[in-house]
């Protein structure tokens, strides 16, 4: 594999958006091409991640840019991990030398496609889905056990939401309704969704899109890219299958995915300045501090309490505000995490910049599949 760089990024502010996924996707494709300062003709292939909006999602998206017929378009699906997996696929294609430039896109419109007042559900062909589970329920089961084992309280969990919303305060791309200050009381006393997870501990089902253009070193030179961001690692793993008594306060697939990325890059958690993780619910980020190796097993809560995961701490978790402040459009989130990591490394996050950030990690899982902790996990490590 040769070295691969991010040369262009595009995203749009998340929210309840009237345009369907393919229109959101077109906008970020165009934004990323303008950001890179290249022509559409320079893009050799496209990968498109989407969760639940339809079929031939990528071709629909690119048709209206006029690019359909000019490049191969490959659609990628793995629920929440789809957008990051699209970027991974573009990375592989450039790294393998097939293409000089490839684009990974994630786009989703949830609000036009889902009934409000319901929760995201695994496939009903999955036994847990048939028996009534929803994604928030699966995470609530982990949260309840975490509290039982560690003595953490709902107020502790709330601190993750408070931190991430505060991080997003000055981020124009975060959901306008979820960014800024929120009190412990507002988090804890919001509507109960699945004990102990209250409404403000859950990401919203917003709409959004992100695009990442990847290129070879030759292409970086050819186009005179001022701040190329190097992809140090891009790992995709599938969830270990285990019907036994596994530890739901740990996360086998996230550890597997991060270790693969650490090995590929030679960069360890101690070298990473910031991380965007799958903080769909407060409990997930807490578990990930440990699962990703940023602290010892059992020390996650201490990291949060000690301020080690915010500005000025050891590693800034969710500086964009995470899913808790952006909302989480299934197919879009993974791509947008990478967009935001690249933006931070380029030093362009006015008002929410991680000072001196040189290395960033993004991690996004995907899918409720019984017998696994998640169906998929995609991890990227970037540097500048």
């Amino acid at each position, binding site marked *: 594999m040769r070295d691969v760089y991010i040369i262009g990024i595009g995203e749009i502010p998340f929210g309840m958006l009237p345009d369907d996924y393919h229109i959101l996707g077109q906008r970020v494709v165009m934004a990323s091409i303008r950001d890179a300062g290249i022509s559409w003709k320079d893009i050799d292939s496209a990968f498109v991640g989407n969760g639940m909006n339809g079929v031939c999602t990528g071709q629909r998206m690119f048709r209206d840019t006029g690019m359909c017929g000019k490049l191969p378009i490959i659609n990628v699906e793995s629920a929440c991990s789809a957008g990051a997996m699209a970027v991974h696929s573009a990375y592989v294609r450039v790294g393998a030398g097939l293409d000089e430039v490839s684009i990974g896109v994630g786009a989703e419109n949830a609000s036009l496609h889902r009934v409000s*007042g319901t929760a995201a559900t695994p496939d009903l062909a999955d036994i847990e889905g*048939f*028996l009534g589970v929803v994604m928030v329920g699966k995470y609530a089961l982990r949260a309840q*056990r975490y509290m*039982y084992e560690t003595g953490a309280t709902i107020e502790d969990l709330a601190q993750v939401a408070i931190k991430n919303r505060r991080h997003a305060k000055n981020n124009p791309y975060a959901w306008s309704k979820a960014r800024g200050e929120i009190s412990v009381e507002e988090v804890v006393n919001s509507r*109960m969704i*699945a004990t102990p997870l209250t409404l403000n501990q859950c990401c919203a089902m917003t709409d959004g899109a992100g695009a990442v253009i990847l290129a070879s070193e030759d292409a970086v030179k050819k186009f005179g890219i001022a701040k190329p961001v190097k992809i140090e690692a891009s790992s995709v793993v599938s969830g270990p299958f285990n019907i036994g008594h596994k530890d739901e306060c740990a996360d086998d697939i996230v550890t597997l995915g991060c270790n693969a990325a650490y090995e590929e890059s030679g960069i360890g958690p101690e070298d990473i300045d910031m991380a965007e993780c799958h903080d769909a619910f407060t409990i997930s980020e807490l578990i990930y501090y440990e699962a990703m190796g940023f602290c010892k097993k059992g020390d996650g809560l201490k990291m949060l309490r000690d301020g080690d995961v915010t500005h000025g701490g050891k590693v800034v978790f969710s500086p964009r505000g995470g899913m808790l402040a952006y909302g989480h459009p299934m197919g879009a989130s993974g791509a947008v995490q990478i967009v935001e990591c690249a933006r931070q490394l380029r030093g362009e996050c006015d008002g929410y910049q991680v000072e001196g950030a040189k290395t960033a990690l993004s991690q996004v899982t995907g899918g409720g599949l019984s017998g696994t902790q998640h169906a998929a996990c995609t991890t990227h490590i970037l540097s500048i």
Partner: protein
Amino acid sequence: MADKTKKKKKEDITFFHPDIFEVPEDSPPYLKGWKCKQCGTIWFPKFSPCPNPDCWSEDMEIVPLSRKGKIYSYTDMYIGQLELKAYMPMTVAYVDLPEGIRVFAQLDGEVGTFNCEDEVEVVAGPVRDNMDGKPITSYKFKKIS
């Protein structure tokens, strides 16, 4: 040629699923484990062939699983699937069986009454409505009093 006569709509299931759950008339209900005769692993729910990638044997036998287990974790869900509105709020749990198997299940009982490590036993009860609006029976767990 396509058959244009209207077929009588097939009735939807009212029991989920005979391969994994048995409700005998004169004895308590039990879950069915799928034991691989080649590698000896017991699986739940039904897997056949054996999903052990070094085995893949088709030679599986059904073994009754323990009726009693412990709640590993639980949650009282207030928001759920659209089709399950009539069943909300609902408590769901991971129940650990002594065979080393963890089962996801709905709990039979009031919300706010369960805890981690509570002892529970398997019972039969409605888990959701079918396409005809009739309840589908399957396994649930109930606190041992």
